[in-house]
């Protein structure tokens, strides 16, 4: 495959699947077995009546590879729909992170001030620590974590990206 480095681009792909045992293993196994990247992956049931789950996977590759990833996903039997949110029109992407910061004095005050700028909420607090909840794009969360690092960041937990197309049309 003549994949030139500059062609590699990140894509957010939504996959609507039957919520049945092994479906996540099927999707993840497809990515590992064929050597595709997974940058983030989220999954949860979104339609309990029809037992449908939605998987949001952020992957990267050349246009030909990304096209192949979508084709491979869509031919899995329990897959109902594959949508490339990066390519098929505008979309909204969000990620949630819980960020634990330990510190005192000026650093503690500075962390609160930055959290305020980023509209992060403290969801847990002790005399020595905060747990901030922050919601936003991946780059916003990256920036927040970067700023918290010198202020006593000790732990991060992130959900990975969830995304949805803009406008009235459902998937």
């Amino acid at each position, binding site marked *: *495959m*003549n994949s030139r480095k500059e062609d590699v681009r990140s894509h957010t792909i939504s996959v609507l699947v*039957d919520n049945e*045992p*092994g479906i996540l*293993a*099927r999707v993840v*196994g*497809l990515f590992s*077995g064929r050597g595709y990247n997974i940058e983030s992956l989220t999954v949860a049931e979104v339609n309990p009546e029809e037992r449908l789950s939605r998987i949001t996977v952020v992957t990267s590759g050349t246009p*030909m590879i990304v*096209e*192949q990833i979508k*084709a*491979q996903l*869509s*031919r*899995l*039997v*329990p897959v*109902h729909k594959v949508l490339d949110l990066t390519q098929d029109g505008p979309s909204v992407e969000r990620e949630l992170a819980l960020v634990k910061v330990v510190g005192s004095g000026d650093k503690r005050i500075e962390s609160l001030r930055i959290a305020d700028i980023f509209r992060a909420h403290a969801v847990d607090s002790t005399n020595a620590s905060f747990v901030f909840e922050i919601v936003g794009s991946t780059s916003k969360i990256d920036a927040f974590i970067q700023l918290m690092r010198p202020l006593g960041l000790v732990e991060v937990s992130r959900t990975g990206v969830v995304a949805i197309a803009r406008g009235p049309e459902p998937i």
Partner: protein
Amino acid sequence: MATETLSGSQIILRALADQGVEVVFGYPGGAVLPLYDEIFKQNRLRHILVRHEQAAVHAAEGYARSTGKVGVVLVTSGPGATNAVTGLLDALCDSVPIVCLTGQVPTHLIGNDAFQEADTTGITRPCTKHNYLVKDIGDLARVMHEAFYVAAHGRPGPVLVDLPKDILVAIGPYQGPAKQGHKSYRPRTEPDADAIAAAAKLMVEAKRPLFYIGGGVINSGPAAAKALTSLVHLTGFPCTQTLMGLGGFPGNDKLSLGMLGMHGMYEANLAMHDCDLMIAVGARFDDRVTGKLSAFSPGSKKIQIDIDPSSINKNVRVDIPILADAGLALEALIKAWKAAKGPGDAQPSKGGPLKAWWAEINRWRARDCLHYAHSEKLIKPQYALERLAHAIKGRDVYITTEVGQHQMWAAQFLKFDEPKRWLTSGGLGTMGYGLPSAMGVQIAHPDALVIDVAGEASILMNIQEMSTLAQHRLPVKVFILNNEYMGMVRQWQELQYGGRYSESYTASLPDFVKLAEAFGAEGIRVDRPDDVDDGIRAMIGSTKAFVLDCRVDPTENCFPMIPSGSAHNEMLLGPEESVGTSGDEDGMVLV
């Protein structure tokens, strides 16, 4: 619809009956005993007891590929299931519809490392088109019917149903097949009209066109091969076939260029390289076909018809993708071609715009790329196959093969005018495929002549099935081209590894004639060119299973050959051209 209440085992047999299954290839074991007990109590379904589970799957493949029906396998849990894995992947790679039923430990023991427990659905997920673990008796009938639907629709493939032992004895409802085979899986089969029109336009304008057809033409059913033959004759375009596509277009037709690819015909590969329009039908641009991708058919527009969206634009970017069943797309193309050309157009092959193209192809043909040096003393494998081809001419014959040099020679020297007569392991390249596959063919076609063209190394990989042949009185013929080497390994070692024949000599070979006799079959050995015809006559004339141990020149190599990493126009035509090919480091990392 009134639902009946049956045991799990009864539900399975009922579902098999409703799906029209007549034969199942299997091997019993603890976890499937309730099902085998139910099989004992009936006479409708025929069970063929194999000697190894891998062979059960290959036999089902042979049955499926020679009939167009779904092949059915029944094996036990743990080792029964893991032994079947190679066969399942083989069926996946070559798109063969199989339903494989595996036993499983009872549901309450799953995950407990119980005796003969394996995570069968986990192990087989990448080796099947789809698989199921039935944990609720209420799902069993639906899953059974779905398995058959999924195996046979879209691009066919193996589907596995894992059956815990408690499910086999539980009581539950039975429903017949649903109108909709699956709640959401509905592969597209109708071609897009605009794409067909665009394809026909390119075909009308082409100066150097070529059909490149694969196993999809055969899988689609007899109508597709018929439509393809009509379209090729209508257009007068040349047609080359992949290893899997042999028989999809008549091999003896003047418009056929034979097989293409690594060991394909000189004229087929050069036509691929130099064409201005390639029409791929049910072919997937496999690396054995394309050679060096960056130099693959550089000047051509490409049309690709395939039922599997992931086969389109995977390795080679095409100009007009047509996602459809091959038969439906070809029929649409015939209509579009006729509309575009109008009536009264002369047969294009008789002259006209393609004259120059055919003249060039005929110059390539004149190179006679299958030429070999005949010997009076040693049997050349090519000679043996030429004699076999002569002996079976005009008969309805099914040929299976193992994997290696003999397989490529068989593909080159035997011609197939009809689909479903040539069964070989293409994608996975499974040594040991041929004998059990031939067994499945013979079960489906009891009166046909079924020949496994084998090598002495491959045949030993599933030789135990000679016992199955004996039990079921299957007169399968095994034609061993015995060169005492894993010939293809030896050939690569000669060409790329300086003649260091590491572990490729098959030492301590058995006496194949005595081996045949030990299994209740007949056998003879031939080692002189003059005796080949008599040997073949004895083999074909025998009413029993037969092994013909044909001792061939151990040093013969398979040509033409496109070395790994080379382009279609860089073929080696014979041993004299292969000097100095060793030590190419780019080629060495490729397979």
